[in-house]
């Protein structure tokens, strides 16, 4: 810590994850990393690359191959004063963790009136579009968004990955941290390793606009920003909001934007029905109805499983689909 900070180089989202993990492990001995293949192998996505070498195998633990085990050990450690950061290798493998997350992590503080707590992070590489096998491409954030006591976070840039992960590890309550794997290596940006956390309860406005509000999170931020570009060329000014912290939701930022634009298109990768977009649309129906000049639109995955990779890109929201929805919204005034 006393060493001079090296000049920061541009890094990818996944490198920002590694950087945040290393930073926090340096300053907080309670932080441990655990999961399948997180040790010498550095994780199947290399998120923990070099950490076991740097911090030893008592800080970076390979687990037996069982997600129930990972979740249970994590809750056990967290409730005894450690700050475990667990990894589910892929989104499709986290379902056996649901029991411990819902029944224990989310309730430990509540049920003991604060006597025991559960400061843990569960990192989940999330979403489709990388031509992976079955169960490696799920957008399953909605499984947690109805569960009180949790925080659900999803960064969409290297800087937000770094700042939000630091915040998540420091947070005294359990955080489900989804990492959009399709954009793990999409682009690089300079992320100073300064230990500065970002707030866990705000939406990030990525682009200002006046005609309509595009709300999204995770990997779809890319297509949504591209759609905003395309719309701009046609003279339509789209504001783009990266929700980033899904739960608790910073609805105020969305409402404020929609109050100005009168139109909202929600974009997400998960199936439409009861995806988290529904909650945002519902809040608009409750609190922004008189601001809306056009019906809310949802551009989402279809109500089917993401297909194996020959067809997967046809399942996902595309620039085309977003632009079309935006234009439908613009048809109202």
């Amino acid at each position: 810590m006393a060493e001079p900070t090296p000049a920061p180089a541009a890094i990818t989202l996944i490198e920002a994850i590694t950087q945040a993990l290393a930073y926090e492990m340096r300053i907080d001995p309670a932080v441990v990393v655990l999961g399948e293949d997180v040790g010498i192998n550095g994780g199947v996505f290399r998120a923990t690359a070099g950490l076991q070498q740097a911090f030893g195998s008592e800080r970076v633990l390979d687990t037996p191959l069982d997600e129930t085990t990972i979740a249970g050990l994590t809750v056990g450690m967290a409730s005894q004063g450690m700050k475990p950061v667990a990894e589910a290798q892929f989104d499709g493998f986290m379902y056996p963790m649901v029991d411990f997350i819902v029944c224990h992590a989310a309730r430990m503080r509540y049920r003991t009136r604060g006597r025991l707590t559960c400061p843990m992070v569960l990192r989940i590489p999330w979403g489709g579009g990388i031509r992976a096998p079955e169960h490696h491409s799920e957008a399953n954030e909605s499984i947690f968004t109805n569960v009180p006591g949790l925080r659900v976070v999803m960064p969409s840039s290297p800087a937000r990955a770094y700042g939000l992960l630091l915040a998540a590890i420091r947070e005294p309550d359990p955080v489900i941290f989804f990492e959009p794997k399709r954009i793990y290596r999409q682009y690089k940006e300079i992320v100073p390793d300064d230990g500065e956390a970002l707030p866990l309860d705000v939406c990030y406005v990525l682009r200002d606009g006046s005609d309509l509000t595009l709300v999204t999170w995770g990997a779809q931020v890319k297509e949504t920003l591209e759609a905003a570009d395309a719309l701009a060329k046609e003279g339509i000014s789209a504001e783009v909001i990266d929700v980033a912290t899904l739960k608790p939701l910073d609805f105020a930022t969305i409402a404020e934007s929609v109050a100005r634009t009168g139109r909202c298109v929600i974009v997400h990768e998960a199936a439409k029905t009861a995806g988290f977009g529904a909650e945002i649309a519902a809040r608009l129906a409750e609190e922004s109805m008189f601001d809306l000049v056009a019906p809310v639109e949802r551009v989402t995955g279809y109500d089917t499983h993401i297909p194996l990779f020959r067809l997967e890109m046809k399942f996902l929201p595309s620039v085309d689909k977003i632009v079309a929805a935006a234009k439908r919204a613009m048809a109202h005034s």
Partner: protein
Amino acid sequence: MTIAAHFEIEYLQYLGPDGKLVTDLPTGFEVKSLLPLFKQMLYVRVFDTKAIALQRTGKLGTYAASLGHEATHVGIGASMRPEDVFAPSYREYGAQFMRGVRPREVLMYWGGDERGNDFAGPKNDYPWCVPISTQCLMAAGAALAFKLRKEPRIAVSCCGDGGSSKADFYAALNSAGAYKLPLVLCVINNGWAISVPRAAQTGAETLAQKGLAGGLHCLQVDGNDLIAVLESMRRASERARSGEGGSVIEFMTYRLHDHTTADDARRYRGEDEVKAGWAREPMLRLRSFLAGKKLWDEAQEKAWLEECGKLVDVEINAYLESKVQPVEAMFDFLYADPPPDLLAQRAAAIALEKRNG
């Protein structure tokens, strides 16, 4: 025939149902040390009886009695150190009382109040755990924390015969073996998981041998024999403390009561079996053993039971007099840092409460 591996499961029993020793006492065992534990067992039984009565008269919710399990529970509690962590299922009051949990907390919990889990005593112990055997895996996590921090502490967790079928139990023993954790998994085999008999849970001859799946130390113990319980726990905790890893101990006992007050065991088990259970129960034999050693008599028992009654009544009154938490309690302790929307709901709930008087 080549043999890749070979195992034996030892069975421990010292005191037979008739109160006679069936084998020599463990070396160095002090018979006098049984006395306070016997008294503790009696205390628990008084508590149980009164708690059931409270439930029957509508003053308590569903209650899970520990009738018949007293030797196992108290023996486990007696073997632990304050700094260890206990992860109970939902009926090990005997162990918990010895660790400082107060009877009023038990009552609060079954009386529908979260404050029951805010133990005045063992601050790091886990609360009662409803999702079967998940406590075992949390205890493994606790043990892992102790090991990583190089603390001389162990974790002890209990589950039932039914609970030993649960995936979480297997995950706990698997990780205890993989990480050589200071963990003692106590399987309290009382013959029944609500209406499902032990035989329907598994094809294994003993529940103790499940530990072999994780390379753990395994023991089967007469759980109605306090001496055997103490000796088995001594062995397992010593192993755990000295870095030799985890154990699975199967305590053979019997559930003398219904599963909980919400259950009616007559639907699924015969009276003969229960009768036989009463003949093997832990108090009987220990009382007769201590009486034989002139350490206990009827007068002492009468006096102590009376005292127990008074002690428990104090606790019951504290529970009965406790005020219901205010409505905002359901919002508090959800997050360290509650989000604004939640605070708004909290305010609305308080306002509604005020409006409704």
